[in-house]
């Protein structure tokens, strides 16, 4: 029983990381109708940048957050400006961002080679650290990512619900033409939201770099689980993404302990299929921008 509890708890925490990776995609897809596959490359690129800066300057990798988050905010802004200029719609976004994904993946392989990279334990004390609560050790990297995801999900939910920017985002998501007619600067809203999406990808990259070895092909392994979280949570729904991440992580963690690791992906996708059949609009649609 202790093992199951441990599996669920760590699953919940790693669900936070999934949610953090999914937040940007969810917002971008829900509000801007951009299915941004390049988001996965941004996460990995952020992890590489954190790795490189950490080993080059021998600094605390967590400090690199203050570097990569603003940089990737700008990247997100530029990407959205490009989408706007190129008149990229929902379907085209799949193709365009897939191309960007491929280009960035090849670029990362060219710069850092195909080999594994990992911040050494002498510089990364977080990787093996844990906080014990109630006799259950909570690994620091996933604990931090869970806290970050929770904070962002709640704050973004409040922003979307209670601020002018949030109302503008929802208006853009529901009917861009009408939003424009009512004086909403839709382009500015989209650019800002895309910037936030980029910043979230950067933050996810920080926690990836803290917790595991990275290599150019790593991003591919995130596709299935992150899109499960996005769809399960409901498009544009930040709290939904967090909830979905927690559910998927906990279920996978419990399945790993009870039936073995091979059952974890099976359980994840059974949940996704069940959600698509019975809750295709997502778990918490009332908070969705879409």
């Amino acid at each position, binding site marked *: 029983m202790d*093992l199951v509890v*441990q*599996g669920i708890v*760590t*699953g919940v*925490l*790693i669900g936070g990381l999934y949610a953090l990776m999914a937040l940007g995609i969810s917002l971008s897809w*829900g509000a801007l109708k951009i*299915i941004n*596959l390049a988001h996965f490359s941004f996460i990995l690129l952020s992890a590489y940048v954190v790795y490189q800066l950490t080993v080059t300057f021998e600094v605390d990798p967590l400090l690199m957050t203050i570097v990569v988050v603003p940089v990737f905010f700008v990247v997100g802004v530029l990407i959205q400006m490009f989408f706007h200029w190129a008149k990229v719609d929902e379907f085209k976004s*799949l193709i365009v961002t*897939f191309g960007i*994904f*491929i280009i960035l*993946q*090849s670029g990362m*392989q060219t*710069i*850092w*080679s*195909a*080999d*594994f*990279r*990992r*911040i*050494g334990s002498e510089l990364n004390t977080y*990787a*093996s650290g844990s906080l014990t609560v109630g006799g259950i*050790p909570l*690994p*620091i*990297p996933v604990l931090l990512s869970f806290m970050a995801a929770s904070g962002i999900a709640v704050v973004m939910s409040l922003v979307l619900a209670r601020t002018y920017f949030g109302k503008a985002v929802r208006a853009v998501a529901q009917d861009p033409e009408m939003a424009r007619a009512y004086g909403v600067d839709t382009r500015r809203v989209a650019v800002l939201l895309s910037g936030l999406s980029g910043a979230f990808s950067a933050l996810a990259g920080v926690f990836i770099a803290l*917790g*595991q*070895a990275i*290599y*150019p*092909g790593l991003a*591919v*392994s*995130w*596709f*299935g689980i992150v*899109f499960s979280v996005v*769809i399960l949570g*409901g*498009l544009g729904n930040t709290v939904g993404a967090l909830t979905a991440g927690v559910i998927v*992580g906990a279920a*996978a*963690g419990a399945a*790993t*302990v009870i039936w*073995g*690791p*091979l059952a*974890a992906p099976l359980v994840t996708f059974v949940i996704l299929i069940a959600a*698509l059949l019975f809750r*295709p*609009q997502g778990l918490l649609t009332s908070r969705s921008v879409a």
Partner: protein
Amino acid sequence: MKSHKGWRYLAIITVMALLVAACGGDGEGSDTTATGGTDAPTDTTEPMTDTTEPMTDTTEATGEPSGEPIRIGGTLSLTGFLAPTAAIHEAVGEVFVERINEQGGLLGRPVEWQVLDDESVPDQAAALYERLITEDEVDLVLGPYGTGNITAAMAVAERYGYVFPHHTASLTYAYTYACHFSSWSTGLHPNITNPNLVYDAIESSGSTPETIGFVINEFPGTQFIAYGQPETDEGGAVAEAENRGYDVVLEVAFPTAITDWAPIASQVADADPDFLYIGGLGVDASNLITAMNAIGYSPRGMFTQWDAPGPLLGTEGSNGVMSVTIFEQHPPFIDDPEVVEVAAEINQALADAGIPFTDVETQAAASWTAWEYLQQAAEGAGSLDQQAMCDYLLENGAQTLFHGDIEFFPDQQNYYVDLSKIKQVQDGGWYVVYPEEFAAPDRSVIYPIN
């Protein structure tokens, strides 16, 4: 979101994910040359003179090659999930081709290496070998990297009767082609010899584990070593441990693409075996050790099958981890000055390729040896006749730089004996610790770790 829309986009995304997983981000059949670029093939046409004796002394300059280049074709996983290790084979191949051209070429002719990207996909590897042989009409082929790719490509080589040297394929029982030559000398039954080597090494410390736990990647090669050949279930690390009286207290199989190691770490901690046997690849052990550290658990002894050596060294808690190797860059393996020279060239090539861990170990050594097989087969046969080359190797074996003389036993599916050794992380480096005669100076097995 409308439900039908969700399904539609999910389907598209799934297809794209599969496409990315398959292609790993590069175009189909992108060529790389002996000089390591990713453009169209270029010839390496250094002058040479004819040589007819097997060349184990690669420092011996024999003149400039001339005439039509001998084109050697092959694939490597330049992209995709095997790319981290394939990059080592690419760098080593470039060094070998450069050296052979500097030292007179092959049969007096310059050598050109045409390597295509199989994208870590066995079907793609098979298709590209078909193309190399039938369309590009290469003179010789060298195997790709990775068990699946090698297995797929070997079938093509067999169909066209090409001699097929290859490195680091793990399903030894599956390779029945009469002209395949593995440069990874594990013997035909590594599922028996490898685990027993590990257990002998542990027991050489004077301590014998009473309990043992297994955490095994579902990859076919690691499954074979852990559980034996599927049809016979003969041998395997689990059965061999039981034969020695170790109590198996944990058996966990995990998928190749796993993102959450914490539940497995918890299971290991709960079982608390005296020794943990990880059937790991890539960074499996590294990730598991990190997850175990995070819950405050440190095994008393650990072994990992084929983890990448570099990342493991940088992992906190890796001290004392054992693994198998066929070569390490320390005495007595580097007693020969030529080994030192070639190893230094490979170190530089790996560094130039941006690979962080540049020591020559199993992958680089096996890669070099596969090239030596091909070179000696052609020079021994005195021609590029595939059957003559095959016969030459079967009759004469090969003289290799990193492993000494190798024989090929047809009754063992051309495998030689298992040349594996046990290495261990000690003081931040990898050192061979068993058998004793191959151990690094002043090094021996440390068990238990704590």
